[in-house]
């Protein structure tokens, strides 16, 4: 068994084809005829551009525009006058074309690979690909034609260059194993887009295998087996069938309304951290945004973001969602989230201290900027304001007061906004839970944050290994709290959502259905899984399980009962 990085989910079983890397060696000789060497170089560059443009077009058509961007980037870089210019300068000084290409590419690779930015470091591997392609063209080396491999092939390579990946025929390639590359490398992105299981960064794999060896690629766990014995093989054949069945079942939930088996509709929203993630929510078939964490605007920044900067980000999310709800949580900092330029004081007890709405109401000037930005963006979609860490009614009232003042100002100055913009509370403290009935009279909606609610209800720091065992949403106290919050909201006629991890938990879903949760907000990749599980429960089944579970005295009994009843 070999371990690597799980880069593309699924299980592939097949026969290995090793892609042999040609040695790109050349004599670094001095050039006499500079003119013809320059011509040889320019011809190679032209050929490179032509081939790259063709491959980009092919990938754009077969896979998608996002995947084609990698190759288009290569084209942009090689069209840069600095790149070709530096190379030509070296040729003019008597270097051969191969040396010039290597030296200039290596210089840029060195520069980019040292940067403290993941996306920039990725450019280093782009330039390395360009270098390989150019050297191959100059040396007249042709890659093997991957498009012609037999069905059931497991490709094994040091690294898959974009030119190789562009030739992959997904009907014939059952899996991919490489020695280098991570989750965000080109090979990984393309493997995921083509839905081919892939395990990357398996050390020395190209030297450990031979053509025609049997291999299992478990792209979900990041495990590879070479020449597995019969037991392992039959176990994985079964796993592969289960995976394929599960995937096709999940696909049948794309574009389908989220309903229980007896037809009760609930909303299935997504949690996002940046406006760009809204696109992902749409791609994953989310029906809205249940939690847009606004912290990224503040954390990835060197200064307080201006009203316009914030407005643009909120507007982008609202426009992307095209009228579907976008619940924006106002700044939730403090606790474990520090923002250096705000100069917040170190606290003895940060989770019980100056954080979230407490900080916002203590710094009204900057809070008003955020509220104004959100309200201006509300003219472009269905935006709602959510207040984090509410503990008492005064906090909700204070925020609503600010919102009303801004409304007056907007009306007076003719600034567009949604006059019916809703203001809701995140319910994540024991205090808010206990007075949920009081808050529900003045809040437009609730959203339960199970992570903090569990931590505060159990008085446990889940980062502390000695006490982390107490951190469980299945604790009877936490379940009672959730039940009380949902019922209080429903009694007052306001929607109650949940944006913590529990909303996507297969064990929690029947309880939440029974309690009457109206909106589940999950990580975009879990939308279909959550919709599938919700569809398997009827209200009456969920009710009878819930009645049984709520009468239990300990967490372990609860977990056991929920696991026995679980529907995968």
């Amino acid at each position: 068994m070999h371990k690597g990085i799980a880069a593309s989910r699924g299980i592939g079983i097949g026969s290995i084809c090793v892609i042999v890397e040609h040695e790109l060696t050349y004599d670094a000789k001095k050039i006499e005829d500079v003119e013809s060497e320059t011509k040889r170089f320019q011809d190679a560059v032209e050929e490179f551009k032509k081939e790259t443009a063709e491959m980009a077009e092919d990938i754009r058509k077969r896979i998608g525009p996002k995947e084609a961007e990698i190759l288009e980037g290569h084209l942009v870089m090689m069209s840069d006058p600095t790149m070709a210019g530096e190379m030509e300068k070296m040729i003019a000084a008597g270097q051969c074309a191969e040396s010039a290409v290597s030296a200039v590419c290596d210089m840029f690779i060195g520069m980019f690979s040292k940067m403290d930015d993941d996306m920039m470091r990725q450019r280093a591997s782009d330039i390395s690909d360009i270098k390989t392609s150019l050297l191959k063209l100059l040396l007249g080396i042709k890659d093997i034609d991957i498009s012609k491999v037999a069905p059931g092939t497991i490709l094994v390579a040091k690294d898959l260059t974009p030119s190789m990946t562009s030739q992959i025929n997904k009907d014939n390639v059952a899996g991919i194993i490489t020695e280098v590359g991570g989750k965000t490398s080109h090979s990984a992105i393309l493997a995921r887009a083509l839905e081919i299981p892939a395990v990357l960064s398996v050390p020395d794999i190209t030297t450990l295998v031979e053509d025609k060896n049997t291999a299992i690629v478990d792209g979900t766990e990041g495990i590879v087996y070479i020449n597995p014995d019969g037991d392992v093989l039959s176990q994985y054949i079964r796993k592969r069938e289960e995976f394929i069945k599960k995937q096709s079942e999940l696909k049948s939930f794309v574009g389908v309304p989220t309903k229980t088996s007896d037809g009760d509709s609930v909303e299935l929203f997504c949690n996002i951290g940046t406006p760009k993630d809204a696109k992902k929510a749409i791609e994953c078939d989310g029906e809205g945004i249940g939690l847009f964490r606004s912290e990224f605007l503040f954390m990835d920044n060197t200064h307080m973001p201006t009203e316009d900067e914030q407005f643009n980000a909120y507007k982008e999310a609202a426009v992307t969602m095209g009228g579907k709800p976008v619940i924006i949580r106002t700044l939730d900092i403090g606790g474990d989230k520090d923002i250096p330029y705000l100069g917040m004081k170190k606290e003895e007890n940060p989770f019980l201290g100056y954080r979230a709405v407490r900080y916002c109401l203590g710094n009204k000037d900057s809070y008003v900027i955020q509220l104004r930005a959100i309200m201006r963006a509300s003219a472009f979609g269905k935006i709602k304001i959510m207040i984090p860490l509410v503990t008492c009614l005064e906090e909700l009232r204070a925020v609503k007061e600010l919102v009303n003042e801004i409304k007056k100002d907007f009306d007076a100055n003719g600034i567009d906004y949604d006059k019916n913009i809703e203001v809701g509370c995140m319910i994540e403290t024991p205090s808010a839970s206990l007075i949920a009935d009081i808050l529900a009279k003045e809040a437009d909606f609730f959203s339960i944050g199970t992570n903090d609610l569990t931590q505060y209800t159990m008085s446990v720091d889940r980062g502390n290994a000695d006490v982390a065992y107490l951190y469980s949403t299945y604790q009877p106290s936490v379940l009672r709290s959730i039940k009380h919050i949902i019922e209080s909201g429903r009694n007052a006629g306001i929607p109650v959502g949940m944006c913590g991890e529990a909303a996507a938990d297969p064990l929690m879903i029947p309880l939440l259905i029974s309690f009457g949760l109206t909106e589940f907000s999950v990580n975009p990749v879990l939308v279909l899984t959550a919709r599938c599980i919700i569809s398997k429960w009827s209200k009456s089944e969920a009710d009878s399980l819930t009645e049984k579970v709520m009468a239990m005295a300990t967490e372990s009994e609860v977990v056991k009962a929920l696991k026995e009843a679980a529907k995968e």
Partner: protein
Amino acid sequence: MVSQVVKVTNEQGMHMRPASLFSQTVTPFTSDVKVVFNGTSYDAKSVMMLMSACIKCGAEIEIVCDGPDEQDALKKAVELVEAGLGD
């Protein structure tokens, strides 16, 4: 020679696409166009040079144009950065 300091506001900073758009926008001008960041000057007509500066969201850069059409070049370049570099 004319110059102006602007703030990069697009989320990604000077990555491939924004850098590419920036260099394409200033290349047609006859003037020299440079971006000064952290005390180093980068040729703005080269996407590689722009990317090598590792300019992130929130960074302040100075755009320096020198040549017969320097005013127009500066105006175009500043507008592009202020509009979020196409992001």
